[in-house]
């Protein structure tokens, strides 16, 4: 098992003081919203209210929120992957419209045309989740090139899984971003399984971030269950990119608590392994960190959880009340 080091305590202090208590508590709340969103998704699926499949990111919330918080969501660009509900919510997208998209409703971000695997919030530069492994990765250099040609100080954050790092497109994209010195942050969310295949079996290197060496870009591996570690690494990569120094490859090591999708019986891993990772739950971990720093009380943590739960209930009510897409509009958006 890959060992990731904890942030030194003085770095934790430094980060927390620059983030501030209010924003730190908002990050905690966003993680909680994602957790409850995913649990609600699972429940709605069990109730037969969801038409398709879904990929849940329970256990991976710190990577989503840590990364999005470290860039300027809405100004910078995001590309992400099929396990993307959390990325969209972490980007600050509306919970109601995210839920409505998941439920296939007209009020959803994609008017119910995209669904769980294709949630995008284009107005806020979230260029979408992607149903194809590494599908979003080669798009990122194009976004980076556009930023460069337009002369803005935006960056493009592209999130993909460990499985994607074995796709050719990942290698082409990292190389192109490197030779053109583009402002792209390649964030590999290593949840340790590409469907049923563990990354240890799928790649013969200890760290995916080592692949950065092959393309002449900085690479580092962080504890993906530590929100501050992700925030720190992505923040540094963003500063590097904005300074015109080019792309970075970050590997964020986390763990998928649930199966790959709804049809997964998880015969490829043990219950003990899952339990071991559940003990590393990123949400109480960050809450403890804030409590220790005097930024949060136990009572406030409960209030955070209540607010998060209320947002999810409201989102389901909103989505239930939203109309189905009208069949007369079926061809809209095929062509401009």
């Amino acid at each position, binding site marked *: 098992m890959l060992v990731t080091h904890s942030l030194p305590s003085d770095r934790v202090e430094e980060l927390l003081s620059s983030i501030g208590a209010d924003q730190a508590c908002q990050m905690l709340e966003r993680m909680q919203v994602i957790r409850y969103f995913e649990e609600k998704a699972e429940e709605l699926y069990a109730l037969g209210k969801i038409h398709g499949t879904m990929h849940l990111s329970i256990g991976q919330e710190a990577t989503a929120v840590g990364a999005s918080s470290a860039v300027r969501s809405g100004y910078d*660009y995001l590309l992400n992957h099929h396990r993307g509900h959390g990325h969209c919510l972490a980007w600050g997208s509306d919970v109601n419209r995210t839920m409505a998209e998941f439920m296939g409703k007209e009020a959803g971000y994609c008017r119910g045309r995209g669904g769980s695997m294709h949630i995008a919030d*284009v107005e806020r530069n979230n*260029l*979408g989740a*992607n149903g194809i492994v590494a599908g979003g990765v080669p*798009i990122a250099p*194009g976004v980076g*090139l*556009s930023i460069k040609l337009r002369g803005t100080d935006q960056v493009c954050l592209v999130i993909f899984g460990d499985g994607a790092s074995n796709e050719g497109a990942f290698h082409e994209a990292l190389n192109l971003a490197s030779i053109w010195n583009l402002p792209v942050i390649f964030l590999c969310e290593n949840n340790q399984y590409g469907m049923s295949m563990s990354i240890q079996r799928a790649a013969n290197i200890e760290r995916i971030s080592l692949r950065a060496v092959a393309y002449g870009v900085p690479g580092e591996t962080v504890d993906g269950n530590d929100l501050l570690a992700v925030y720190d690494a992505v923040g540094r990569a963003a500063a590097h990119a904005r300074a015109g120094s080019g792309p970075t490859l970050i590997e964020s090591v986390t763990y998928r608590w649930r199966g790959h999708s709804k049809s997964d019986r998880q015969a490829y891993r043990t219950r003990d392994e899952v339990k071991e990772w559940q003990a590393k739950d990123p949400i109480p971990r960050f809450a403890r960190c804030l409590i220790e720093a005097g930024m949060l009380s136990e009572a406030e943590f409960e209030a955070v959880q209540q607010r998060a739960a209320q947002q999810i209930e409201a989102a389901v009510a909103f989505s239930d009340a939203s109309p189905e897409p009208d069949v007369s509009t079926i061809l809209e*958006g095929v062509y401009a």
Partner: protein
Amino acid sequence: MYGGAFGVSAGLYDQFGAERVRDTPISEAAIAGACLGAALTGMRPIGEIQFMDFVTLSMEQLVLQASKVRFMFGGKASAPFVLRMPGGSGTGAAAQHSQSLENWFVHVPGLKVVMPSSAYDAKGLLLASIDDDNPVIFVEHKLLYKTKGHVPAEMYRIPLSQSHIVRQGRDVTVVATSIMVQRALAAADELAPEGIEIEIVDPRTLSPLDEEPIVESVIKTGRVLVVHEAVITGGFGGEIVSRIASSAAFDYLDAPVRRLAGRHMPIPYNRTLEYHTVPQVENIVEEARRLAQGVY
């Protein structure tokens, strides 16, 4: 720097500079992805794939991403880019550098597929493709690079999805694409002294197709031959034929609808074999004559 495998971007680097005109590594997925990413964020990139055959390495970005982003994201994303690629045989480049794969893209909603058949059309269609808010697959036949024709200096556009009657005729409609339009014109010149007048319709944009001029032409002539270089099986000709068969033109048909297309085989290296793999002028002359004379 090289100007592309056939020099189609020659001079652009000197004129517009290294920021806007970029050499890329041989990374077709990344080239298509870079076009898409730039297009999604406000640019209008033009990419080139060295040979159309190599677009097989870009297929994921084109078929699963670019073609679908607008629809999949509820109409809110736009991917206006053009991907140019030289296709076709006749240069002795053999099986992996000579294919005509346009119909693969015709089958994908969300993509536009454009195939110019002359220098004049190439300019007007390319400018219209650059203006278009959809991803456009722009297929150029290598042999057409060597043809000459009048091209006005001004920036004229030829609207996409507008089929063009290249030559008027009363006896046989020939629906042809790309270089087959030029071969059909040569065939028409040979047939005219025999009193056979063929009407040539060039769809120019294969998808979305402007069907009406084809249907109207067949209503006029009652006989139709569809010609393209791509392999006949599953080729664009099948689509044209079925559109005609499902249209008002059906009742006006005086003869079976005929297709001339590439044989169901890879393109051979040997010059003679290569020549006989795809339709040539004499094949069009023969087929059109038989249709006109009612011998088939």
